[in-house]
């Protein structure tokens, strides 16, 4: 009976529509936020930051973005990798072009640039649907990567074709470049993630979110009851690409430090983020967190178990990982299309009654 909603009455519609209607959830959420901002910075080290925590934060942003597009608006995209690359290259061009511009603004602006590119490639969604649209987003994927690897202006004519992030500071603390510490990397990613998750929550609970879901569930009916499909789809593309662009900018500036488009933002990145969304749960903010955590932590654990403990060859472990991920996608789509988020809801439903299930 720890987890319950009985006796927790709502007396106004405002109280009824808050994010965490159950008290227990609300306190859990405050606790998590406090833990993430106050405790983790004290205990985080380079290994944890690099192997798990920072990639988790960054990919969660991408998964949130893609979930808005696929999970909420029902538009399938396979161009996530390329849109992350747009964010990365936009931030690179701005960092090198305007060295005095604060890195925070650079990353946000990179998000806006990506949003614009996303809208451009989202235009076909007005005429085409489903996997036809997936092919259109593949065009974005391959064209943009080609652009970033073949047109030297984008990588400032560097002889290696790589882009690398110079050191930038926030309040005098370096957050990018080789001098950035684990804590500063963690904090900047966390701040972005928390603010963006809050934005995503706001957008999906209001009238815009309902228009997206209406388009997802039945586009013709949605148009007849008054949803402008052009606006709904393009805003979804814009918001989604904004998130993905910021994620790409963070991945490059904060996490990788140096990148080459084909290597860092290939089609496998598109699939990785797509899988996070499917496994985590389509149409769920929590699902983006769960899916990213699962696909970041899972492979690390698998490698720890197979390579470090059992001494298996690395390539075998990698193949096993691909196989397991593929199988998991199938299992989730067949058994629980709404992913970990739905499993979590079921568990909570059970907890509500525990320990007196009858």
């Amino acid at each position, binding site marked *: 009976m720890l987890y319950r909603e009985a006796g927790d009455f709502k007396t106004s519609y405002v109280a009824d529509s808050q994010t965490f209607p159950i008290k227990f959830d609300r306190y859990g959420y405050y606790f998590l936020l406090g833990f993430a901002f106050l405790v983790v910075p004290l205990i985080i080290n380079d290994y944890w930051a690099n192997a798990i925590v920072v990639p988790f934060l960054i990919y969660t942003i991408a998964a949130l973005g893609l979930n808005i597009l696929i999970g909420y608006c029902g538009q399938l995209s396979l161009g996530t990798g390329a849109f992350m690359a747009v964010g990365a290259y936009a931030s690179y061009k701005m960092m090198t072009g305007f060295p005095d511009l604060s890195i925070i603004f650079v990353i946000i602006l990179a998000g806006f640039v990506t949003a614009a590119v996303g809208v451009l490639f989202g235009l076909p969604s007005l005429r085409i649907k489903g996997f036809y649209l997936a092919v259109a987003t593949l065009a974005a994927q391959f064209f943009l990567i080609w652009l970033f690897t073949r047109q030297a202006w984008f990588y400032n004519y560097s002889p290696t074709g790589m882009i690398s992030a110079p050191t930038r500071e926030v309040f005098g603390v370096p957050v990018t470049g080789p001098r950035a510490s684990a804590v500063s990397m963690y904090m900047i990613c966390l701040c972005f993630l928390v603010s963006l998750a809050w934005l995503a929550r706001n957008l999906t609970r209001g*009238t815009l979110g309902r228009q997206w879901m209406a388009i997802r569930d*039945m586009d*013709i*009916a949605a148009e007849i009851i008054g949803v402008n499909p052009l606006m709904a789809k393009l805003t979804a593309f814009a*918001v989604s690409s904004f998130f993905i662009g910021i994620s790409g900018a963070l991945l490059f500036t904060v996490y990788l430090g140096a990148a080459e488009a084909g290597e860092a933002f290939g089609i496998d990145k598109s699939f990785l983020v797509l899988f996070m969304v499917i496994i985590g749960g389509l149409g769920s903010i929590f699902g983006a967190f769960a899916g990213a955590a699962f696909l970041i932590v899972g492979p690390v654990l698998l490698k720890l178990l197979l390579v470090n403990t059992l001494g298996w060859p690395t390539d075998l472990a990698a193949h096993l990982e691909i196989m397991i991920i593929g199988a998991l996608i199938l299992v989730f789509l067949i058994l629980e299309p709404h992913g970990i988020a739905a499993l979590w809801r079921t568990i909570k439903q059970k907890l509500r009654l525990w320990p007196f299930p009858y």
Partner: protein
Amino acid sequence: MRDTATDEGYVTADGRKIGGVAMEMKNITLRFGGVVAIKDISFDIRWGEVRAIIGPNGAGKSSMLNVISGFYHPQEGEVIYKGYRRPKMRPYQVARTGIARTFQNIALFEGMSVLDNIMTGRLHHMSANLFQQAFWLGKASREEHENREKVEKIIDFLEIQHIRKTPVARLPYGLKKRVELARALAAEPSILLLDEPMAGMNVEEKEDMSRFILDVNDEFGTTTVLIEHDMGVVMDLSDRVVVMDYGKKIGDGTPDEVRNNEEVIKAYLGVAHD
């Protein structure tokens, strides 16, 4: 909301005010390739009345409703709405002129809760922009709660409080139909279009639905156009009836006039009375 029509309307036997002409269909012809779905049909809809369109299967009733709601664009003829000729519009633009509808095969948003479904009906009463919504600033959250209250009134009116938060996919057929009506009503439409609101219902559900349709008309004075198969229900509900057969209009008038129309009896009542 009186309009430019010359005729100023009348008062019905049960004391409801029927206004002038709200919408006039003029010589509508609709073709799909070589098939003529609607052939040169004209009729009008008055403010405040319950107008029925009846006819056997394949008579073109649903196509007619689709023309009114802007989903199909007729090849010939025009739609005069609120005194003006309606230009070719996308369906969502038509919806914004105050026309809401339900669908023959329920078209609810299955992945959303009942409440969210009904709230989508109110979307053109909400105007917060992307940034206001993203930051949940003043207007966005205020609008959300104002509209929530309006929606709650409709929920009360249609007696669906207990399923407010239920995902629509889990509802039985009859309740889905009611939620769909709620979504259309939430738009506070000038004209409400109902496409076979009682199809597939049992007697009890039909009675409930009839009561709601009449109550809506009584309470809000909503002009209602409905398509129905069930002759008995139509005759009880509607003020005036258009009868269609094979895409043509074969009768138009009060239920009594239509009932006694030779051609209607021959084409509809005699042949396809199910």
